[in-house]
């Protein structure tokens, strides 16, 4: 069991925008997989200094009216998020959270509607393309994961120069290994910033955390970040849950 020793205790925030609906799932994943303290932080908050890792959950922030994530990027909490990213804090945007990171400019590129023009919910095969990020250290490069997707606008797109940058700087974190479910450029499913502390992905690792849910492949996203944080702070390695 984890003890709540402040030197080994990592604090998580789950940002709740109006219309977020995977906030509870992210919260449960942190609690169940790594047993670290986690709090919901409303979109109106202006201070994230008390947290070591910030999760932007999936959902339909502000109804996704206008464009996915386009309104959320103006939420009061976003200044603090940009600051946290610059400070090297760990940030993971999942699905709508990824879209918000793109809209906020914390990650490059944009989202188009799925090529099928239909919402798609399914398990997808992901290939781990880099283990250098804070969230993928516990995986093996080239490993195939089974992680659910659920989105209507997950067709990642960027210009050629940006794509070249992403490749050159090892910023492509996940690619779809089998069928490309949304038509994304270069089969991209998730990317990170250059520093590797900010990761955005369309698939939902928090939905792949137990045998009952059909896959446990998402658990290591959470153990990875705990280990990364502990290494950075010189504390003991996390037990792999």
């Amino acid at each position, binding site marked *: 069991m984890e003890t709540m020793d402040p030197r080994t205790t990592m604090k998580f925030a789950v940002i709740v925008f*109006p*219309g977020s*609906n*995977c906030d*509870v*799932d992210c919260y*449960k*994943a942190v609690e169940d997989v790594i047993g670290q303290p986690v709090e919901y932080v409303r979109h109106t908050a202006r201070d994230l200094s008390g947290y070591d890792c910030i999760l932007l959950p*999936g*959902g*339909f922030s*502000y*109804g*996704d*009216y206008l464009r996915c994530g386009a309104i959320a990027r103006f939420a009061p909490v976003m200044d603090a998020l940009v600051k946290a990213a610059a400070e090297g804090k760990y940030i993971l945007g999942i699905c709508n959270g990824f879209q918000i990171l793109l809209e906020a400019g914390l990650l490059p590129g944009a989202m188009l509607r799925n090529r099928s023009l*239909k*919402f*798609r*919910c*399914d*398990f997808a*095969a992901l*290939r781990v393309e880099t283990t250098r990020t804070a969230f993928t250290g516990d995986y093996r490069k080239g490993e*195939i994961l*089974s992680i*659910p997707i*659920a989105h*209507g606008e997950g067709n990642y797109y960027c210009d050629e120069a940006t794509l070249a940058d992403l490749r050159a700087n090892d910023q492509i974190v996940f690619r*779809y*290994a*089998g*069928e490309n479910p949304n038509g994304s450029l270069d089969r991209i499913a998730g990317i990170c910033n250059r520093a590797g502390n900010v990761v955005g992905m369309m698939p*939902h690792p*928090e*939905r792949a*955390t137990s045998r*009952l*849910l*059909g*896959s446990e492949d998402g658990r290591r996203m959470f153990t990875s970040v705990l280990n990364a944080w502990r290494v950075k702070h010189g504390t003991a390695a996390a037990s792999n849950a």
Partner: protein
Amino acid sequence: MARLQQATLEPAADRIAEEKIYRQFGVTDDEYDLICRLLGRRPNYTEIGVFSVMWSEHCSYKNSKPILKKFPTTGPRVLVGPGEGAGIVDIGDNQAVCFKIESHNHPSAVEPYQGAATGVGGIIRDIFSMGARPVALLNSLRFGPLSSERVKYLFEQVVAGIAGYGNCVGIPTVGGEVMFDESYEGNPLVNAMCVGLIDHDRIQRGRADGVGNPVFYVGPPTGRDGIHGATFASEELSEASEAKRPSVQVGDPFMEKLVMEACLELIASGIVVGIQDMGAAGLTCSSSEMASKAGNGMELNLDLVPQRETGMTPYEMMLSESQERMLFVVRPEHEEQARAIFEKWGVPCVKVGKVTDDGRLRLIHKGEVAADIPVRALVDECPVYRKPSRVPDYYARNASVDTTRYPEVTDLEGALEKVLASPNVASKEWVYRQYDYMVRTETAVGPGSDAAVVTIRGTRKALAMTTDGNGRYCYLDPEVGGMIAVAEAARNVVCSGGEPLAITDNLNFGSPEKPESFWQLEKAADGIAEACRRLGTPVIGGNVSLYNESAIGAIHPTPVIGMVGLIRDVDHITTQGFKAEGDAVILLGETKAELGGSEFQKVIHGVTEGRPPAIDLDREKALLDALLEAIRAGLVKSAHDVSDGGLAVALAECCITGGETGFAPDGSRLGGIGASIDLSTSLRPDILLFSESQSRVVISADSHRAGEIVEWFRAKGVPAERIGTVGGSKLSVRINGSPAVDADVARLSGIWRGAIPCLMNG
């Protein structure tokens, strides 16, 4: 200015009487006279509008009340039965499950996206207005054949509407059914079900108690959308229905999400006296029902009602079905606390009236009394009709149809392929992949197996849930069809490891004015009632949708059963797919020559005739009890109900959905496993494979224990026979020693998965 205009537009009470304007609202002459007597005067335009919606079939059940009385509605687990927003059933540990199904057929026929979307929105509000947290959505859909462009459009848009709403609110759509048949061509069926979890001490009632208490309006402003939606739902569809498009409401799932979170927080605070959603007949129905349940009156100041458009009249405000609105009552000292909660969620919340002691619904508009009606007259005094009923000619004719007389089909593999490719049998992946069925991360079994399974966090328990109905069986024999609908739902729940708890029903029928349609309704209700009594699953709520008729006539009578079961321990969760090489395949139940209403009869012989399969509820009960016991004892590795398409389809589905899960190193999807089946029979092989005899289940089990398991079932009076072994990559079926089917599972899977995408994209 607006008022003046309206005054000239709205006919006065005398003119309404003289020109019989009330008839436009579906009010009969006799009903109008009764209204005058109850009021002691002639109603004005607002009042006749209010009466007409409250006295519509949709709100009053005036034609179906005598039918609904047949249902068993009580039981040791029932905490809330019919009459509230949704029924509630105890599941132990102070927890309960709250669920209900509701139709949005007529709106979906003219505006499929919004019609379906707002159907989902409405049923979600029914659940959270009881205080329950919605945890799952299901649906039951019927369309005409996919060969028609109009039907493709309806199908595509209905599915998109359900997805668009449920996905955004963040409640997983975990299950459902879709069937296609000519009878639904002009009148699709869209039934939506919501399941919620609640603690016993949080159960709310829609009651306006406490004279003087303030009444609050919550949600977006009222517009002119959906005016007379309830009346629209209570008449037949026709060419003129297109003009009723303005009667279809427009949904805003984002607002629903906020209203839901705010209302659940309000309820959790413990200060709510009464709360109800504004569904059919909007402000009219919610205010009068809440007042009626408490034996009180209510006064509303319509000038305070948030309005989206200028110049709205009392008539328009009272009859609007604008979405995502709620009405609640608190004590005066809690007003500020309530307001603060809605402010936090950014949801409009306005005090619009108060509870009164005079038993009247009084509406004030611009300083004048716009309506003043005894609440009882609206809610309780609507006449109840016992419609004439007559056995249809086709029913008598079908008695002499011999469904074994068709020429024998000898290409059994070809027949299997055809039936697998029928949209009724084919995989519905094209549909459910558009639904987020995993959000909330409690979905242990999603769409595509016998029943969906949703776990309950913090416990070992889970809920199994399903919707079932077969319009063809009900058309051929509504009483037997009604029984089968309940029995099949129960079988699906048990196959998934659950104990059936209770049902909610959606009675989709033709016009009750037609004696043949009314007979179908009566008989189906008899069948449902009998099956519910025998299987111990009371009816805790539901919905009636009559007048499902279009230019081509009435739909097949289609009662849809929504059932929820309790899985005691997540270890009991069982799915339909075969699991491992070498496992024994065991068939429970007995196969008879029963092709009436079957998918095979329709696909191969092009007809729906004869009598549907018979059902013996005692044998069904014995099967269900024994199977559940076997599952709980850990003897069963997979279980699949034998239904549409018969044994051949059930076996194919066990193979297609069986085997390994996940992905291969190249990213390709794993799955599928073969089976070798040996059947001996005195039936004709095509009848054996495609008969839809009831009370049958295909299970698989460890082969070392197969003999013991077969004996165990037989000892409990359940016919059981080992019919084969799981393994390989082919489904091979031999009948009396001769090969009947020898097909690659991958190929069958391709046909089964590809059928609907092919029809939609081709």
